[in-house]
């Protein structure tokens, strides 16, 4: 073969190699399944990813024997999959087995091909202490079950078929702090309430008209005033959060959620035309009590008792405050820098407040009727 031809051929083959390489998603790997669990109220929730390949080897998914496993064949086989899982997977507290409910949740790709995702809902009489796992070992003793219960990976093997759970399943302190932060950041209503409180808070105190200039307050003084309001809000919601988490009776969630939305409407309208004659922090305290009930569901769902619950409460609440302070640190200086513009007090505050009031009003309707009007 001539040298140029050889070179051209090598180039062509290399191109083919790459094409094949990027296309081949189904690399070889020993058999693994991935089990993710988290405590939830009385029991646990999570999911299991099992390789279609492994399901096929054990349950023969290829009904028509054509050598191709289709979506329909997987659907059709699911009752058998459920039965197999029920026989080879157990969550229990001591000798009390939880009742497991499995549901199909689509196909997930892993590095060695498609996996079936199965959602697991476990109803238990006490706390979950152990997981028993014996999937696929009969067909492949090299199979591993990778358990992720939030505290680093643990592995079921042919030799190790039981792993402890409950003690480690309570999320770590830092994880709870993070949850608190995210809870504040992802909860649109709390953010909106905060911003609503802040909009007029940076304005010159006692300022009646724009033609009467006053001594401008320093950023520090403004911040201190805001801090007082926010602290009142925080103390209040910590109280009800603790009460709710510790199991004291809480109002129905629909009521709480609707009342929170209503509180936002009121706070927003107050910015446009003062409704509350009392001190602002008293109002913030009252509304904070309401918001605390809203948070408490998160902790109740973890199903913790005793010291772990107190720890989680502390961490979660700390996270909520960190998230709040972070928002303040960004928003307050920004608003402070805007207050010198007349349009800020005259236009931006009322318009923004009205928009907030409208959004919150929609929430009230949604939460009372249970129907979603605006997606998100």
């Amino acid at each position, binding site marked *: 073969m001539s040298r140029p031809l050889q070179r051209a051929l090598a180039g062509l083959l290399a191109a083919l190699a790459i094409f094949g390489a990027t296309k081949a998603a189904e690399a070889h790997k020993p058999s693994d399944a991935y089990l993710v669990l988290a405590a939830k109220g009385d029991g646990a929730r999570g999911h299991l990813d099992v390789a279609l390949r492994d399901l096929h080897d054990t349950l023969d998914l290829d009904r028509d024997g054509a050598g*191709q496993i289709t*979506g329909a064949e997987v659907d059709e086989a699911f009752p058998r999959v459920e039965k197999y899982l029920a026989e080879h997977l157990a969550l229990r507290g001591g000798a009390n087995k939880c009742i497991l409910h499995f549901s199909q949740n689509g196909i997930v790709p892993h590095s060695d091909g498609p996996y079936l995702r199965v959602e697991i809902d476990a109803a238990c009489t006490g706390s979950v202490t152990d997981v028993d796992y014996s999937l696929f070992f009969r067909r492949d003793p090299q199979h591993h079950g990778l358990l992720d219960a939030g505290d680093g990976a643990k592995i079921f093997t042919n030799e190790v078929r039981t792993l402890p759970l409950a003690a480690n399943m309570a999320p770590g302190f830092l994880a709870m702090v993070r949850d608190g932060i995210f809870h504040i950041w992802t909860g649109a209503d709390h953010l909106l309430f905060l911003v609503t409180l802040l909009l007029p808070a940076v304005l010159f105190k006692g300022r009646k008209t724009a033609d009467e200039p006053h001594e401008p307050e320093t950023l520090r003084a403004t911040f201190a005033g805001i801090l007082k309001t926010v602290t009142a809000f925080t103390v209040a919601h910590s109280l009800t959060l603790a009460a709710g988490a510790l199991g004291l009776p809480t109002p129905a969630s629909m009521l709480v959620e609707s009342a929170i939305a209503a509180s936002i409407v009121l706070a927003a309208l107050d910015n446009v035309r003062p409704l509350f004659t009392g001190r602002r922090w008293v109002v913030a305290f009252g509304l904070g009590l309401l918001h605390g009930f809203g948070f408490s569901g998160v902790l109740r769902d973890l199903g913790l008792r005793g010291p772990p619950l107190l720890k989680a409460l502390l961490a979660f609440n700390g996270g909520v405050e960190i998230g709040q302070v972070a928002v303040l640190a960004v928003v307050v200086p920004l608003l402070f820098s805007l207050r010198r513009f007349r349009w800020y007090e005259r236009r931006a505050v009322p318009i923004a407040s009205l928009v907030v009031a409208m959004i919150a009003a929609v929430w009230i309707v949604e939460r009372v009727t249970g129907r979603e009007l605006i997606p998100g």
Partner: protein
Amino acid sequence: MEAARTSWGATGALFAAVGLVIASGFFRPPEVAADAHGDVPAASAVLLTVAPRSDPAEATRRALRERLARDPRDEEAATELAERCILQARKTRDPRWLGQAQAALGPFWSDADPSAEVLLLRATIRQSLHAFPEALADLDRATRLRADPQIELTRATVLAILGRFDEARAACTRVSERLPVVGAGCTAQIEAVTGSARPAVVRLDAVLTGAGAATEEIPWLLSLRAEANLRLGDRGAARSDLLRALAGDPLDAYSRILLQDTHIDEANEQSLAAAIALTVGHENDDAVMLRGAIAAKRAHHPQADAFARELREKQKAARERGDTVHRREEALFALHVDGDAAQALPLAEANFGVQKEPADVRLLLEAAIAAHEPLRGKPAADFARKTKLEDPVIAALLPQVPQ
């Protein structure tokens, strides 16, 4: 109007900032993947291709499984199924088959007193899983039960991997008594790594030009001669033998990898392209793909990153399941793809603790030198000197390691 313009800019800034704060909350899921769900496929979508029921090999395995379901102590069915699964593992390089081979042996796997046949199969599976000492223990027991060249050959292979060459040579001699051609290959394999690479080539020349070698033995003998020639620094001779071996048995992963390594050492544009080209149709083989990734990186191939990414993902999955089978590949990846000698060195050391083939010796030397800790390459250097390992690349590395 100056003030008005500023004020509109500031309004924009205000809304952008508030929007950003809210958006940062909206788009960051608090619980990772807790609510993630998979794609719901169409009923007609083909999700996975498996062996069809009409496939004769699949039909045989099915029949054997049915026999075992009726009688789990049917040793003949168990060993035949295990053997077929091991063969399938070799052919497809899919480790799931090794697990299935183990399962096929069922109750015999953990018998207190397994037969020689079961011991040989168990050792073969254990060797494939890189459990070399356990494999050797099985083979030692098996030789006491039965004089069998197949057992002795497997024993010689495991002993050579462990660097116990005297015992390996003795095992090869026993193979020769019953199977002269296989025994010659076995002996040449040991000679090649113990300072007698030239006699090894001569021995293999004789076997390959004689009429004694069976067709299915020829690719194996060619790959052995290629290795002996590589020890002598003759990459050209090695390459042509490896190409012939692959022509005879395209599924011979060992020859394929060796050929890729030879191309990579050649280190010119054309040879690197050839090393990449050898991955075609073998995308499932991590070892083959690793060589492709190394060659792609050295050739500054546009897809080099894609190669590396895919391997990295597989390594992550292997680590998650607690596997250490692929230490050699992991170390090679760290050293030659990531260029991270500090990470490669402990892996290369751990690997050298398990296996001591020329590739392992070279890897530890290269990693230690690249990490500027040449002293940590000393075990490999000592081993190379003690066993009189011939190899021009290794010989060039040795002076860089303190004696």
